[in-house]
């Protein structure tokens, strides 16, 4: 059984995605249990797989028994073992948490929603687990197409935002495909390990350099790296809460995983950082991404939209960290994939609860929320602290690695940008806390109250099914922070090739 984990991770949600759709016609009540069971099996398999990888080393799974490079092989090493756990656990928790808001927002389309949800997770998990460059493209499009559907389900401005996302997403995926085409011309192979074996003799070739750059641009569009980020804020803001708390933590992070995979496995760090000699400008682009993301977030008056701009800044963190070209920076970038996915999930789930109760996330809607929804806001504070980078939450540790990496590389611009963005996050989140805590709850009688004080708003908390996953993720944020040393030593350190110092 455990030898089949790599296939189960993808196959179970894929089949469940189709089953859920059929179940939606028969009885809508079946959709949720099937989807959660499938995601649970995926999460269980990926956790089992990570422990197997830690004990036994890299696992190669040959699809259908065909040997690579002819057949498609799934490789699981420490890097994608870790990302697999993050993706599957985030998807599983969010599926449980969003049950009520899905029933609330689109009661007629529950089957379609869960089907898209599970298929999107299939695509994301497939991108992470596959060892075949073209297979990755197909799974990329599976994740993207279902993502457009999930975002458009919101109605209102949702479909328009999804359509704009679709143009950009398609261009990004096409660029990736084009880059793989050039690699195929040069190497005659699509298997990542096989390409990596053939490439070193061709590193001076212009076509290989073009392939690398084109792939990178494609992946950057997909991850909303700053000048290419225009699709992200609207798409994530106007998506229904259940979709945005799935899409926001995972899609950008999985694309950063793809970038790191290209840098480390398909090409070597030697090629990416030394032969190509583009690290400096890319880190400067990351600096601009961080600063602009932070500034654009300051201007927003809607909590959800503010958070989407923070994502744009966080993408800058990870791209910059990966391109610093040293081991510490790369460790920070990989650790931040984990941390950012978890803390983005935490804050977006909290926003989901708020939207479920208050029906809006504009700053005016947030007044008095600490009294009204103390548990949700408690978890939100933990997520916000992690985004700011307060120990012992996990956000602190990855930021620490990123800043150490920047100092080691002598790239002080990147360091300043990281500190600047943390300070802006402090302003952003404490402004939210202030509104939620001090400003009176805008209930019906604010002026006519003769006693001169506002009535205590009654507590009106989100249902337990939404609160428990939120607490779980808030606790995980702290736990991951406390066990950062183990994660770095046992997993991330092994994942980075020895050549990178």
């Amino acid at each position, binding site marked *: 059984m455990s030898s089949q984990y790599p296939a189960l991770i993808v196959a179970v949600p894929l089949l469940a995605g189709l089953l859920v759709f059929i179940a939606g016609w028969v009885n809508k009540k079946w959709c949720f249990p099937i989807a959660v069971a499938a995601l649970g099996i995926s999460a269980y398999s990926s956790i089992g797989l990570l422990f197997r990888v830690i004990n036994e080393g890299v696992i190669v799974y040959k699809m259908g028994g065909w040997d690579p490079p002819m057949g498609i092989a799934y490789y699981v090493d420490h890097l994608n073992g870790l990302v697999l756990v993050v993706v599957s656990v985030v998807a599983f928790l969010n599926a449980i948490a969003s049950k009520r808001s899905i029933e609330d927002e689109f009661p007629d389309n529950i089957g379609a929603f869960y089907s898209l949800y599970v298929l999107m997770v299939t695509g994301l998990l497939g991108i992470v687990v596959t060892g075949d460059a073209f297979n990755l493209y*197909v799974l990329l499009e599976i994740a993207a197409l279902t993502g457009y559907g999930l975002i458009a389900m919101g109605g209102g401005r949702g479909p328009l935002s999804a359509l704009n996302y679709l143009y950009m997403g398609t261009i990004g995926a096409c660029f990736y495909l084009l880059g793989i085409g050039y690699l195929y011309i040069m190497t005659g192979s699509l298997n990542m390990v096989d390409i990596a074996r053939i490439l070193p003799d061709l590193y001076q070739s212009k076509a290989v350099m073009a392939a690398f750059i084109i792939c990178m641009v494609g992946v950057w569009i997909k991850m909303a790296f700053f000048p290419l980020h225009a699709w992200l804020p609207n798409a994530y803001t106007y998506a229904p809460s259940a979709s945005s708390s799935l899409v926001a933590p995972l899609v950008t992070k999985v694309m950063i995983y793809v970038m790191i995979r290209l840098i480390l496995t398909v090409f070597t760090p030697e090629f990416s950082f030394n032969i190509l000699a583009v690290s400096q400008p890319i880190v400067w682009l990351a600096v601009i991404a961080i600063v602009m993301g932070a500034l654009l977030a300051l201007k927003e008056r809607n909590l959800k939209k503010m958070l989407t701009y923070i994502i744009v800044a966080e993408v800058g963190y990870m791209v910059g960290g990966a391109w610093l070209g040293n081991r510490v920076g790369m460790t920070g970038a990989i650790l931040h994939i984990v941390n950012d996915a978890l803390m983005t999930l935490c804050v977006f789930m909290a926003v989901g609860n708020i939207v479920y109760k208050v029906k809006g996330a504009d700053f005016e809607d947030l007044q008095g929320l600490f009294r009204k929804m103390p548990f949700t806001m408690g978890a939100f504070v933990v997520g916000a602290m992690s985004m700011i980078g307060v120990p012992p939450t996990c956000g602190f540790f990855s930021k620490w690695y990123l800043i150490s990496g920047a100092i080691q590389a002598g790239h002080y611009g990147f360091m300043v940008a990281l500190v600047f963005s943390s300070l802006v996050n402090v302003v952003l989140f404490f402004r939210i806390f202030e509104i939620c805590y001090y400003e009176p709850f805008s209930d019906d009688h604010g002026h006519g109250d003769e006693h001169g004080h506002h009535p205590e708003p009654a507590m009106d908390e989100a249902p337990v099914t939404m609160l428990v996953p939120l607490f779980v993720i808030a606790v995980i944020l702290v736990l991951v922070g406390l066990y950062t040393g183990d994660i770095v030593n046992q997993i991330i350190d092994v994942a980075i090739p020895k050549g990178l110092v």
Partner: protein
Amino acid sequence: MADIVSTVVANYNYWIYITLMMIGLYAIIAKNNLVKKIVGMNIFQTAIILFYVSIGVKKGATIPILEHAHGGHGYGVVHAAEYANPLPHVLMLTAIVVGVATLGVALALAIRVYNEYNTLEEDEILAQIREE
């Protein structure tokens, strides 16, 4: 000058795909109508499919099927040089499917946008959003 011309002519397939790609990209960026943008996106995808198909082609090569292989008088040795490379073509079957699916999703979204705003012109939609 003759050098450049001969390079361009020898690699005409690449020039065609780049031209098509740029036409598609131009339509996505510059066109005002959402459906025209979608068509541009499709041209963009098709350009890459054309690129892949063209790299599998060889002069004087035939389809990669053995003649009379089961009759006993088939070729003893398979010469790869005699056959076109089928792999890029097979890959593009998948890419075509992806392209059709993307087109379908895009048109479905365009219908939803039309129902919402009663127009497909981007500037009119943006004007309506600003009014809200």
